[in-house]
């Protein structure tokens, strides 16, 4: 570094800085490439966007003052005035996008017609296939017979007056057989022969395809290529147009090759060679050849137009070439660049020739192209060299190289795709480096370090196509506005239509009812024609009538006044008797402790106390209460105790977490503060009220039955969000032992019924026309199912 001229170094740095700063602003900078070495490589990355419009006025100005030219200039100006320059066609991606969006809209609309059909078939109880079935409905006998009656005299006369349109009967032609018998036999033979040949060929192809020999395949390939080339050249002579097409297809094949990395050093073969490359010179050479092929293939063929920009690039100093005797590229040169020779086969050669010829023809007009012709030969080499400079490490202390590096790095900044190109090159390194083996090893180790320099010190950020998006946005906005306008206009139109229609209706209403109904129906019929516009919206009647509000006051009964005074007074004095006037569903009698009712039951013969059975209505109350004799008081007491125990058993207990002496004095005779005590007592959640609470001498055990739990539902399935709803949905039985057979059948009917042995045809557009589909109005479902598209 020290040997470099200071000023030059600074200049280089400065340029780097400038370029970096210029990158900071976000607009797309495609710097005009400064050609500092002669090259004819017109990279796609330094193409300029330039207004290609010819400014006629400037042309006319040149024509100038001569009287002769005035005419011409005038004419020119006129033409410019008249001719309206077409707007620039949209960029391809944008155009595509618009095309796609419109296509999407159209398809959406088209598919959207099916929404109600789909929605209906989803919601309906059951769908039976095939959808179309010949109606098996039998005509009523009377209807059938009416068709068989002969025409009456009146009808005959009417027919005379208004004859029915004559329907031409189509005469069925006899089928014409295309071939005679002999011909058919011949034909069949011919076909059989063809088939046999086909099979032979297929067998042969199969056999050949199974051959694994690489050599064979290589030879085959070469042969094919040669054949192709031959054919192509022939074709060129006979039919140039066809040849051009062929050329195009060849070009396509080359592009494909460019995409795939077939000739890179990533293949199995190359990897194997790579291992040996360290020690074997020949192998290195082979690899280099391979790479050269790949480079040749992946190189972009330069257009004539872009070539003129790259004129400067051609002036690449040959220093590097002479510099490295170890460089394999250099080594090839003396022994008749076999890489190039191999590369220059086939269509490539043709292309080059063609360009050369073209150059010859155009030599007068385009000087730059002349230079390109010869330069093309070494273009591959030069290109490789220029790229080699990228991977040279810092220690290769060549100031000029650093300078050269600059434009490349800038390029990298602009188009990140270059970066990917670089990567394989770094991998190439062990083979390609011009230094000694030792050195190459060293540099191989440093490859990673080098990489950032090759791709500049600045972060590489992909540029976004701002302009495009802006254009798009503006377009979207305008489109949206237009759409909105359209819809509004349509709405207004519709409204007007409706109003007109209303007026018409009003007018018609004045006329007789009969005519009116007819016309409306006609209109409906015409409406029916627009079958594609399925009316999805509910037609809501607009009621402008005022609501007639009646006074909701109910006439109060004056029963109270009817009630006699003393009665009420009595009621006031009488003890409170619960009346169930307001709570009719609660029977108060149930809660009054039942009084024992003494029944006049029959007595067995052994009992002579009440000999005579008198079935009087009055109650017979026995004098001795035998009940008391048998009664055991402790029965009740023990039962109540049992209940108490049962209640206490289930009660969760309080947990005292208080620590005596914590934060205060503890010990004998000291009572902990009540506040503290309460604070540390964990009170359990209040228990659910027991079922047998307030029920008297009844114990109901509250325990969960784990065996029943197995049978119970533990989860509420999807559409339900509350237990209540789910339970309601499973509340009714389906079995025919619980509900009538008809309802049972209805409930268990499968959702899809297919008739056995029938072909189920797909729906056709007639389905759209069916009234059941047309009248399907469940907006929510249609919307839901429509979303899924």
């Amino acid at each position, binding site marked *: 570094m020290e040997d470099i001229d200071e000023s030059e170094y600074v200049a280089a740095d400065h340029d780097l800085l400038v370029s970096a700063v210029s990158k900071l602003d976000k607009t797309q900078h495609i710097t005009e490439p400064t050609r500092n070495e002669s090259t004819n490589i017109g990279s796609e990355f330094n193409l300029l966007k330039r207004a290609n419009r010819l400014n006629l006025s400037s042309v006319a100005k040149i024509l100038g003052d001569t009287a002769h030219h005035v005419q011409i200039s005038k004419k020119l100006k006129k033409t410019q005035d008249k001719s309206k320059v077409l707007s620039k066609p949209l960029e391809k991606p944008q155009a595509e996008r618009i095309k796609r969006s419109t296509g999407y809209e159209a398809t959406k609309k088209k598919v959207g017609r099916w929404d109600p059909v789909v929605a209906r078939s989803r919601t309906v109880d059951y769908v039976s296939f095939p959808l179309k079935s010949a109606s098996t409905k039998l005509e009523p006998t009377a209807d059938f017979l009416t068709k068989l009656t002969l025409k009456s005299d009146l009808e005959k006369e009417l027919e005379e007056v208004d004859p029915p349109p004559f329907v031409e009967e189509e005469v069925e032609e006899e089928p014409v057989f295309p071939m005679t018998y002999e011909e058919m036999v011949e034909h069949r033979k011919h076909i059989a022969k063809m088939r046999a040949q086909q099979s032979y060929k297929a067998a042969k192809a199969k056999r050949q395809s199974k051959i694994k020999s690489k050599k064979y395949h290589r030879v085959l390939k070469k042969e094919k290529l040669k054949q192709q080339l031959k054919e192509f050249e022939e074709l060129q002579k006979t039919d140039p147009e066809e040849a051009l097409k062929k050329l195009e297809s060849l070009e396509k094949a080359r592009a494909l090759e460019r995409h795939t990395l077939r000739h890179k050093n990533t293949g199995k073969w190359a990897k194997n060679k790579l291992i040996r490359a360290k020690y074997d010179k020949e192998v290195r050479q082979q690899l280099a050849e391979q790479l050269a092929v790949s480079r040749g293939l992946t190189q972009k063929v330069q257009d004539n137009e872009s070539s003129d920009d790259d004129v400067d690039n051609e002036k690449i100093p040959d220093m590097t070439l002479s510099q490295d005797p170890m460089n394999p590229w250099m080594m090839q040169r003396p022994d008749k660049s076999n890489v190039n020779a191999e590369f220059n086969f086939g269509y490539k050669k043709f292309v080059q020739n063609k360009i050369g010829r073209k150059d010859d023809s155009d030599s007068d007009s385009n000087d730059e192209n002349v230079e390109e012709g010869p330069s093309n030969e070494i273009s591959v080499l030069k290109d490789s060299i220029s790229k080699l400079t990228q991977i040279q490490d810092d220690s290769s202390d060549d100031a000029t190289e650093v300078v050269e590096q600059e434009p490349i790095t800038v390029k990298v900044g602009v188009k990140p795709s270059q970066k990917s190109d670089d990567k394989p090159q770094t991998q190439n390194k062990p083979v390609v480096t011009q230094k000694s083996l030792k050195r190459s090893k060293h540099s191989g180790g440093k490859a990673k370090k080098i990489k950032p320099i090759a791709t500049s010190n600045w972060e590489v950020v992909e540029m976004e196509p701002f302009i495009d998006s802006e254009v798009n946005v503006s377009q979207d906005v305008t489109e949206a506005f237009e759409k909105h306008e359209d819809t509004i206009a349509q709405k207004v139109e519709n409204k007007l239509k409706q109003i007109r229609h209303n007026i018409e209706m009003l007018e018609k209403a004045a006329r007789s009812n009969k005519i009116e109904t007819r016309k409306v*129906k006609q209109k409906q019929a015409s409406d029916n024609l627009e079958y594609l516009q399925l009316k999805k919206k509910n037609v809501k009647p607009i009621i402008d009538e005022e609501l007639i509000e009646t006074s909701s006051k109910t006439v109060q009964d004056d029963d109270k006044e009817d009630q006699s*005074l003393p009665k009420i007074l009595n009621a006031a004095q009488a003890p409170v008797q619960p009346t169930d006037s307001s709570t009719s569903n609660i029977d*108060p009698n149930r809660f009054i402790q039942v009084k024992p009712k003494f029944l006049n*039951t029959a007595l067995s013969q052994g009992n002579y106390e009440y000999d005579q059975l008198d079935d009087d209505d009055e109650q017979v109350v026995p004098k001795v209460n*035998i009940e008391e004799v*048998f009664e*055991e008081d402790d029965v009740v007491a023990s039962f109540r105790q049992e209940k108490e125990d049962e209640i206490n058993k289930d009660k969760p207990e309080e947990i005292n977490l208080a620590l005596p002496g914590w934060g205060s004095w503890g010990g004998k005779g000291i009572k902990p503060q009540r506040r503290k005590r309460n604070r540390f007592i964990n009170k359990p959640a209040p228990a659910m009220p027991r079922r047998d*609470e307030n029920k008297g001498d009844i114990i109901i055990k509250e325990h969960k039955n784990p065996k029943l739990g197995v049978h119970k539902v533990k989860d*509420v399935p999807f559409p339900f969000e509350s237990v209540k709803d789910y339970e309601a949905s499973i509340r009714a039985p389906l079995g025919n032992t619980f509900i009538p057979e008809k309802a049972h059948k209805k409930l268990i009917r499968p959702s899809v019924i297919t008739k056995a042995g029938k072909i189920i045809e797909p729906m056709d557009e007639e389905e759209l026309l069916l009234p059941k589909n047309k009248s399907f109005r469940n907006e929510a479902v249609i919307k839901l199912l429509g979303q899924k598209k």
Partner: protein
Amino acid sequence: MKHPKKKEHNKRYFDKNEKKPEDNGESKDNQVKVYNIKITPNLIKANKFKNKDTFNAIRPKKNKKFEGKAPIDPEKLEVHSRGEGVGKGVRHPLHAEKLRKRERKYNYAQEQAARAEILLTEGQGGLEVEEGGKTTAISQKIIAENVDITAASKIFELNLGFGPYQAKYSRNGRHLLLGSKKGHLAAFDWFTKKLHFEINVMESIHDISWLHTETMVAAAQKEWLYMYDNTGTEIHCIKKMDKILRMEFLPYHFLLAAVNEFGFMTWLDISVGEIVGHYNNRLGRTAVMAQNPYNATLCIGNSKGVVSLWSPTVKDPLAKILCHKTPVTALAVDNRGMYMATSGVDRSMKIWDIRHLDGPIQDYRLRSAPVDLEFSQKDMLAVGLDEVVEIYNNCCTKTTEKPYLRHRMAKAINNFKFCPYEDVLGIGTTNGFTSIIVPGSGEPNFDALESNPFQNKKQRKEAEVKALLDKIPAELITLNPLDITEVDVLSMQEQMEAKKKLLYLKPKKMDFTPRHKKKGKTNIARKKIIKEVARKDFVEKAKEAKKLLNLQEEQKAKKPSFGVLDRFVPTVKTKKQ
């Protein structure tokens, strides 16, 4: 044929329609106006394309002659209601629509069921007496004289000499099984009096039971439980069930439930021969047992007057009711599982609301302690008092004054059963069997798919298979048989809590309120409501009365006002003054 002195009071469907034809006649009388129209070719042309419209205009919208289906009585509809349907809780439009459709089908099912009631043509019979007369005065002799021969043949008596007899009818009411203390076991078709078999097992028989069909019979003998087929062949001897006192067959679960001398309860699944429940109830020796047909629990009355409810899977009683302060003598649960009748040694008989576990609803005192109790299909209660059977009608909801029917015999009663689908009560006595007619006790309309008295062999086989397919697992025997229709909210909550603890998982929103809230179950609340309402009523009435009487309340002397400073006037002092 079935019912003696049966008087039809039910309005039949054709009774109502008597006046209808007249209305129809009027409509027919309306003359049709005839117009004369001259047809010209032009008019025809004009109308040619409007044919369709004109046709529509002419065609009547509805046939007025047939107005569609007859309206359904809303009360009948309510009977078949399955409760409130799904509300608007489901927001997903498609599922909501589907649920709506399903709901419509449920409604249809309900409507159909209500409509199908028209097919229940048979009416309930009954006894009608002149004013002032008593139904108890009508003896079996009078009944036999007044009914047709076939019905009269249902009154019969069998004099058998092998001690006290137990009688049980098969589920369809066609067959009768008799078992005596002295080992006499007989099964026969009691309609035709055709004997299936008659054997003496040479052991004491404590209880008998039909199994799911009339071809199999279980007898609890001195030591073990035996099973016989309809020819009297012993087909099983179940030694695991020994010294059985009482047996009940649970037809829908295929369980034979039994309790033995030591208080061991056993449930035997007769379809697979497996014992599904076996434990001691720790009640001591009790021979008072009945099944609750509503939920298939067993009700056992003990010597302490407590009736307890048992299921095979839980070893504790599901519930206990202290019915009497004295030992329970008899116990019966009605067909719908609504009421339970118990009787004690204290000569009392109580009716309980067994479904809500509440009561007693009715408390009767009798002149002697009943030996047996039995509900009929139409909720008539037969009470056996030594030699007398008294049948009470409507004794559960209302307090009856007197028995509906009384039958006195010259022998002591052992047990009795109402015959299903017949107005017949079969009484097993000390020396034989007596069959009497109790008008209006049986269900007049039978469901042939459920139990068919006129079943033939093939139908029986079909029904057996079907019943086996519909067998309910024993675990489902709980107090509330509809438990199974409810979501297990507790374990669901637990599950959801566990799920909530998982990271990155959106917890499901769920409303846990069950469909049947246990609201207003406590009587206290209801009582309070009732009391409150009554009090308010009373107060209002009193007020109005006062107003009418113009009883002017003494106007309190107006206090001197101090304006803003009123708040400082001590209220307590003023009161004292």
